[in-house]
């Protein structure tokens, strides 16, 4: 770990000013990712700005039934919030699929958005990695890449985003509220994370000095028909090989609106809004879902060790949609994958 200076601002504007003044500084919230990366010498912030004193720890219900989740709410606080669990159960479920209770008790909503990839090479400072050290190369291509991307990767980076929570937020079209030196703005969730392209060192579209202050998510709409399904190398406390957040708005067995986001397969939670749009008006049947899954994976490309993710993702999409359609969402403590009854 490198030496760093420690700042503890008490207001958002102070924090923004501190971050803007020192671009090599990093924000400390729950610490579950930053402290980990600093110990591995991957993160080397010149200053750590501890924002735990900022007033961003509330979950508010807004007039339109939406929720505003403060950036410093913990993952546990959000997952077990009675309103969220009732109105946005997909989000609760996705959070509870991730990490461990101890980590969820510490990790924050804002921090979850900013967590970094679990790519083995990113985590090992002695190996080339374009995300960690731009221009040094990607060791995962041709290396050990069992956990890597099958969609949206580039020649520079095949890392995946490790979050479960973000997969649900992507499916729910959440918006991210940020404050920066020039004021506040909102970022649609799908625009928050980036694909690697030639600049894998940038995970998201935050500008210098910007701080995530909250997440806004719609309530109620998909509460009846949703599921978060996560496949991994052990039955808990492991990152996703493939995960699916599925949300349906149904009229009888006809799809009005469908949302599907994938985790573990790309540099950001993966969605295809055009493919989703074509589901509108179709019957919520296995055939429909299988065709959709094939389309969603049509551009997928394996890296060798992770080729299995392509058929796995197809099947997981179908199952998650079947679960959602039949109102039998996966429960994270249940390790048997629930059936989705055909409609």
């Amino acid at each position, binding site marked *: 770990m490198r030496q760093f200076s*420690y700042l503890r601002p008490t207001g958002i504007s102070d924090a923004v000013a501190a971050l803007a003044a020192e671009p090599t500084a990093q924000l400390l919230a729950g610490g579950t990712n930053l402290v980990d990366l600093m110990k591995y010498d991957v993160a080397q912030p010149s200053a750590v700005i501890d924002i735990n004193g900022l007033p961003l720890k509330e979950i508010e219900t807004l007039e339109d039934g939406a929720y505003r989740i403060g950036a410093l709410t913990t993952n546990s606080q959000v997952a077990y919030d009675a309103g969220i669990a009732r109105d946005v159960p997909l989000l609760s479920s996705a959070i509870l699929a991730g990490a461990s*209770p*101890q*980590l969820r008790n*510490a990790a924050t909503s804002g921090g979850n958005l900013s967590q970094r990839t679990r790519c083995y090479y990113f985590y090992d400072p002695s190996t080339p990695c374009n995300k960690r050290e731009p221009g040094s190369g990607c060791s995962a291509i041709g290396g050990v890449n069992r956990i890597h991307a099958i969609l949206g990767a580039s020649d520079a980076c095949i890392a995946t985003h490790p979050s479960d929570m973000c997969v649900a937020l992507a499916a729910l079209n959440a918006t991210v509220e940020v404050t920066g030196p020039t004021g506040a703005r909102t970022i649609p969730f799908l625009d928050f994370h980036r694909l690697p392209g030639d600049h894998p060192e940038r995970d998201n579209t935050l500008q210098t000095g910007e701080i995530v202050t909250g997440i806004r998510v719609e309530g109620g709409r998909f509460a009846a028909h949703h599921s978060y399904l996560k496949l991994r190398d052990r039955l808990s*406390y492991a990152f996703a090989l493939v995960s699916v957040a599925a949300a349906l708005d149904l009229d009888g067995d006809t799809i009005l609106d469908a949302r599907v986001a994938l985790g573990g397969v790309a540099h950001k939670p993966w969605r295809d809004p055009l493919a989703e749009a074509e589901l509108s008006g179709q019957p919520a049947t296995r055939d429909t879902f299988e065709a959709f899954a094939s389309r969603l994976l049509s551009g997928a490309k394996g890296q060798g060790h992770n080729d299995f993710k392509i058929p796995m993702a197809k099947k997981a999409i179908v199952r998650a949609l079947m679960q959602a359609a039949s109102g039998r969402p996966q429960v994270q*403590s249940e390790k048997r994958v629930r059936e989705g009854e055909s409609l």
Partner: protein
Amino acid sequence: MDLGPARAPSPTIPVTLTVNGRRQQLELAPFVTLLDLLRGDLALTGTKKGCDHGQCGACTVLVNGVRINSCLKFAVSLDGAEITTIEGLGTPDNLHPLQKAFVEHDAYQCGYCTPGQICSAAGLLSEGHAHSREEIRELMSGNLCRCGAYTNIADAIEEVMAADSETTVREAAE
């Protein structure tokens, strides 16, 4: 990547922590984790270092009653917090019900993950989200046990949980 040579050492920062009921005024460098503080200066070695990266749960302690991995917390970020470690739950002569149940059910072998398992179980009980053996297993999954005592740990927790709910029912009836 290498951002150059050693930077100037960080100045220390005053921090107040209440550890196992004892209020402590400390001057800490910002890079000191709660885990290293406990095991080092405070000589509370009951909290274990198993991975130092939040991947095993051996360092679990209760901060303001909530279980967390102490290896991933800079101590300076916990100013004003109340911390309970395994030493604060019970002593060999006065065991906490969970500690007693772990002994009775042989819910450990080498004993190294045990303080973390017990602190985690204490957090689990107060959270109140586990109502079945399946839920106990899921919500204890942040604590690895390489000796493989999992089934006995679940037995121990289940027993204390049942006793707790009996007490609650009895109290409600009174």
